[in-house]
């Protein structure tokens, strides 16, 4: 018995230590990046003194603003389209049976499995084949294709928690299919749809590989600009500015999924006009 107990306590002691190390492994790189964005030395990863020079340099960099504008245009449009498409798709998948459903599902989730470089190259070849000039349009087309499956997954997860007898109750009280959809189904799905949109945002905003292949040099969104800066920094050593850029991008993109998490978890969340139902 004594061996069992000592074995257990060793195990119980070693485990939290390992967990701590893993969390350190996950977060330390990002924290160090953030910390050194305030370092006065650009390339050297050793503390030389506090400085905001990299932020000043970054905010004065006109390419940044252009790239941000492009990113927001692409991602904003993508989130709108893919949320609408994904919600419709999730509804159809959850509620109805139809011919070819399994085939449809496997194609739908394909963009989540295909290696990004393959999808990116294929889209590049496709746009060249159709002679569509690469730019904002091609980026949006590609982004919707790989963001929609994510939206479907998130909305489906929400649907699993809905009591569908509510739809029957609405029809029983005299609401036809369309009124039921707008007065009952959509309000119940709202938190799921919102969460999906909030997750779709960083998903599209942060994508680099596919975007890289379907855009033109003149239309570089933020990730492509970051990539070009990283390539340049290997030689020129402008790492401080990338640290600053990375810090800003991390902080901003982390806020959205946190908000999504809160929305899904929160028990009561009232805004004028609608209210989130309690989780069952």
């Amino acid at each position, binding site marked *: 018995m004594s061996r069992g107990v000592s074995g257990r306590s060793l195990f119980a002691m070693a485990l939290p230590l390992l967990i701590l190390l893993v969390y350190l492994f996950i977060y330390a790189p990002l924290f160090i990046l953030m910390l050194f964005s305030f370092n006065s030395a650009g390339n050297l*990863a050793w503390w030389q003194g506090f400085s905001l020079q990299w932020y000043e340099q970054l905010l004065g960099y006109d390419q940044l603003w252009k790239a941000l504008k492009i990113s927001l245009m692409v991602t904003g449009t993508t989130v709108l389209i893919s949320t609408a*498409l994904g919600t419709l798709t999730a509804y159809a998948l959850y509620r109805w049976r139809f011919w070819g459903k399994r085939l449809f599902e496997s194609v739908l989730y*394909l963009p989540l499995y295909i*290696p990004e470089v393959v999808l990116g190259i*294929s889209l590049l*070849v496709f746009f060249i084949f159709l002679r569509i000039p690469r730019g904002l349009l091609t980026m949006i*087309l590609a982004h919707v294709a790989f963001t929609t499956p994510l939206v479907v997954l998130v909305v489906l997860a929400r649907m699993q928690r809905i009591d569908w007898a509510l739809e029957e109750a609405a029809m029983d009280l005299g609401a036809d299919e369309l009124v039921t959809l707008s007065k009952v189904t959509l309000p119940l799905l709202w938190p799921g749809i919102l969460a999906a949109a909030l*997750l779709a945002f960083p998903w599209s905003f942060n994508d680099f590989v596919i975007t890289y292949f379907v855009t033109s040099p003149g239309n570089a969104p933020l990730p492509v600009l970051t990539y070009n800066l990283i390539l340049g920094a290997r030689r020129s050593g402008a790492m401080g500015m990338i640290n600053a850029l990375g810090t800003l991008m991390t902080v901003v993109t982390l806020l959205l999924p946190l908000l999504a998490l809160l929305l899904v*978890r929160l028990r009561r969340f009232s805004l004028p006009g609608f209210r989130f139902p309690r989780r069952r």
Partner: protein
Amino acid sequence: MSAFRRSLLRSLWRHPNARTVVTLSPVVFWLALFVVAPMLIVLYYSLLTGGPYGALLPHLTLENYQKLFVTENLRTGELEPNWLYLTVFARSLGLALLTTAICLLVGYPVAYWIALYGGRFKGLWIGLFVLPFWTSYLVRIFAWMFLLRDPSGFINQLLLRTGLIQEPIQLLYNPTGVLIGMVYTYLPFAVIPLYASLERLDRSVLEVAFDLGARPWQRLWRVTLPLSRGGILSASVLVFVPSVGEYLIPDLMGGAKVNLIGNVVADKFLRDQNWAFGSAMAMGLMGIVMALLLLYFKLSRSAQVFERQR
């Protein structure tokens, strides 16, 4: 909305086929045009003959696929293994395998701890694990480059200044660097399915195991591991599939010395203008991924049956 349009919509909605077509046609259209059609074009190109200056000649051939494996010896005219690409494939598969193994070894204890000892804050712990996944992939890779560079990277500076090493060590632009980047990026892909399957596990079964006199390691080996088979399977696939097709991590952290399949595909298109061969290579990568997924769906179905019986 006019009464006419309303009744039209209503009768449409009542018709199962019509409503499915109307609801799904935008997505089907989008997927067909921007996922399926591009892949089909690449498949078509992979069967064409590559001409000089990047031209594609419409002679259907399997030569591009053949070139993935064998090449003609220019002196003797005999076929011999094409080591140039075979090494790339082997390196990709090996690195993906190593990444998967490390992610499982590190991820399992983490998932186990969160699922069994996480208490009230389980959701928070797992949330902290997923959170960095939503930050920019590029920024995360850059953060590691900032840590690993020599001699000015953080780790080298730390070790040099504390006197642990005298000479800077090379951590970046070699397979180690790529491996670190891949483990870092794909660890959450392992932890989440492992956590999900361990969370579902019936605790009383574990208690019974102790009650029957099983030692901790026996319990882990005989009870916990077999019961979380489904999670291990999902974790392996979810890490392996993106690792084997990785492009950006070797591109930035491998310093052109650790080329994986994805990098060669991109090079064939962007640098060498050899679309036919690049397409064949892309299809080869797709083939590996598809085979893995099919295997996974087959295995997971049997794992599910196993779990449901419990």
